[in-house]
């Protein structure tokens, strides 16, 4: 049955977050592992898990939303996180006219939406930088590109941006206040592009999911190999339609500086899950104190994939 090879996954607007997916596609890893990938674009992580719930997609993203949905539906929506390709969100904190965190109080900071996981991370960052999140006005101003437009228009003073948009912002006069993984502190992890599936689906389609994850494992390993820098940069430039220069800068940030956005191998990161869980609690989005991250993750599929890829 050829359908056994097809998976439908959700993707966000073309940013760096799907880098390993671009590679898997461009280098033919999916084909090699015998999976055909279909893509549906969604604006937010909330919409991504929504498509999983209605069965329109099988592979989604967004651990924060997955946890909330699983808790609120008492497990009826059996979302489970099966891999964390991006463990340290490669956000760049940018601002117009503001140079230090103390000066953020009383200004407005752009977020995607109130319940978005980017918002959770933003609040964690503010807290760790000694800024009272309640003293900063969080304005929902949409996705990365919208947030840059809002900052250029003057509606918000600062926001987190993903590369390569962040480099465009700097070109247009924005100040880089730091990289989020650094701002959050050494060792801090956050499941940023956590791959989420329905547990029931995963159990029934274990082989297909393992092959899919194996392809992404291939991609991660290839991506983390400095020898592939030039080719990877070209792939990124092509997929996100940016200049080679910006693609190069982005690659530098992700793989040569201290950001360490991408995991070396496919797998579940418990610290990244903990980061999400504590962020949810900080934002007041998760009330029960008992939930442990182990309830929401399952490394067995990624483990299977690592076995396949060796």
């Amino acid at each position, binding site marked *: 049955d050829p359908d056994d090879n097809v998976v439908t996954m959700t993707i966000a607007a073309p940013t760096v977050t799907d880098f390993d997916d671009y590679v898997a596609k461009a280098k033919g890893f999916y084909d090699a592992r015998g999976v055909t990938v279909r893509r549906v674009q969604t604006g937010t992580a909330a919409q991504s898990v929504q498509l999983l*719930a*209605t069965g329109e997609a099988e592979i989604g993203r967004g651990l924060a939303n997955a946890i909330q949905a699983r808790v609120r539906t008492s497990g009826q929506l059996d979302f489970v996180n099966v891999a964390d390709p991006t463990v340290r969100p490669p956000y760049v904190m940018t601002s117009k006219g503001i140079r230090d965190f103390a000066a953020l109080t009383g200004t407005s900071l752009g977020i995607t939406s109130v319940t978005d996981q980017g918002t959770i991370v933003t609040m964690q960052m503010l807290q760790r930088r000694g800024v009272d999140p309640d003293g900063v006005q969080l304005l*929902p*101003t949409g996705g990365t590109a919208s947030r840059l437009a809002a900052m250029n*228009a003057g*509606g*918000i003073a600062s926001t987190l941006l993903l590369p390569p948009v962040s480099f465009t912002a700097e070109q247009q006069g924005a100040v880089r206040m730091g990289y989020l993984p650094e701002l959050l502190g050494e060792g801090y992890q956050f499941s940023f592009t956590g791959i989420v599936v329905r547990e029931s689906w995963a159990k029934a389609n274990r082989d297909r999911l393992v092959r899919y994850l194996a392809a992404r494992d291939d991609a991660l390993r290839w991506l983390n190999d400095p020898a592939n820098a030039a080719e990877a940069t070209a792939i990124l430039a092509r997929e996100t339609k940016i200049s080679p220069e910006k693609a190069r800068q982005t690659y530098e940030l992700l793989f040569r500086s201290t950001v360490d956005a991408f995991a070396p191998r496919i797998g579940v990161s418990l610290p990244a899950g903990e980061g999400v869980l504590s962020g949810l609690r900080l934002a007041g989005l998760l009330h029960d104190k008992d939930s442990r991250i182990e309830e929401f993750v399952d490394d067995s599929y990624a483990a299977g994939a690592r076995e396949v890829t060796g």
Partner: protein
Amino acid sequence: MSRTRSRVIGAGSIVAGAGLWELASRLLFDPLFLPPPSAVWGRFLELLADGSLLGDMAASGQAYGLGLLVAVVVGVLAGVAMAASTVVRDILDPWVSALNATPTIALAPLFILLLGLGIESKVAICAIVMLFPILLNTYYGFSTTDQQLVEVARAYAATRWQTYVKIKLPMALPSLIAGLRLAAAHGLVGVVVSELFGARAGIGLLIQSSAETFDTRALFVGITLLGIVGVAVTYALIAVERRVGRWRVAQQEGG
């Protein structure tokens, strides 16, 4: 004479208002938050030129039109049934009354959850917010039909269907159109709000995405368009209402 004077003042008020707004947003306010009409006009031309505005209008118009269709079909059928049968009325009444008093627009997130971000959820939202005014006014219209005229139909051996179409419908029509007018206004709110939440195109999306990027000029383009459509729909239906209800007024005056 006094009427001409009123019109002149009214027109002057619009011109003066626009002028004041232009000045204020150039001199006093941050044009980011209150763009001057000239800038809004310029942005309107841009959006028109790049074709996105027409696309948005088409998307909203389609959802609005389909929603209206659903609401009219369901509302008129249910309204007629309620007027025709006391049992149906007694069964539906508590639900209809309660739902009519509920801000059903709050169902938008549920519909989006159930039906996704495509046109289906927009149509459903438009339909539900338009349904109750149409249903209730159909019910009122058909339940206050003049029994004497209905008896005329019976006396002339009309079939049930003929009685409905030739006697009851014309009598209920003014009430139906009044319902339609209310529904039209509700529906505009419905289509915009449903798109504000997430859509692939539409005036609501234009407003929402403009707000996100602080493109307040485009935001005002969207709002002004909505206002124009709202005024046009309202006055068109008031005109129809007058036309259709003319014999009623004449009847009251004349006999």
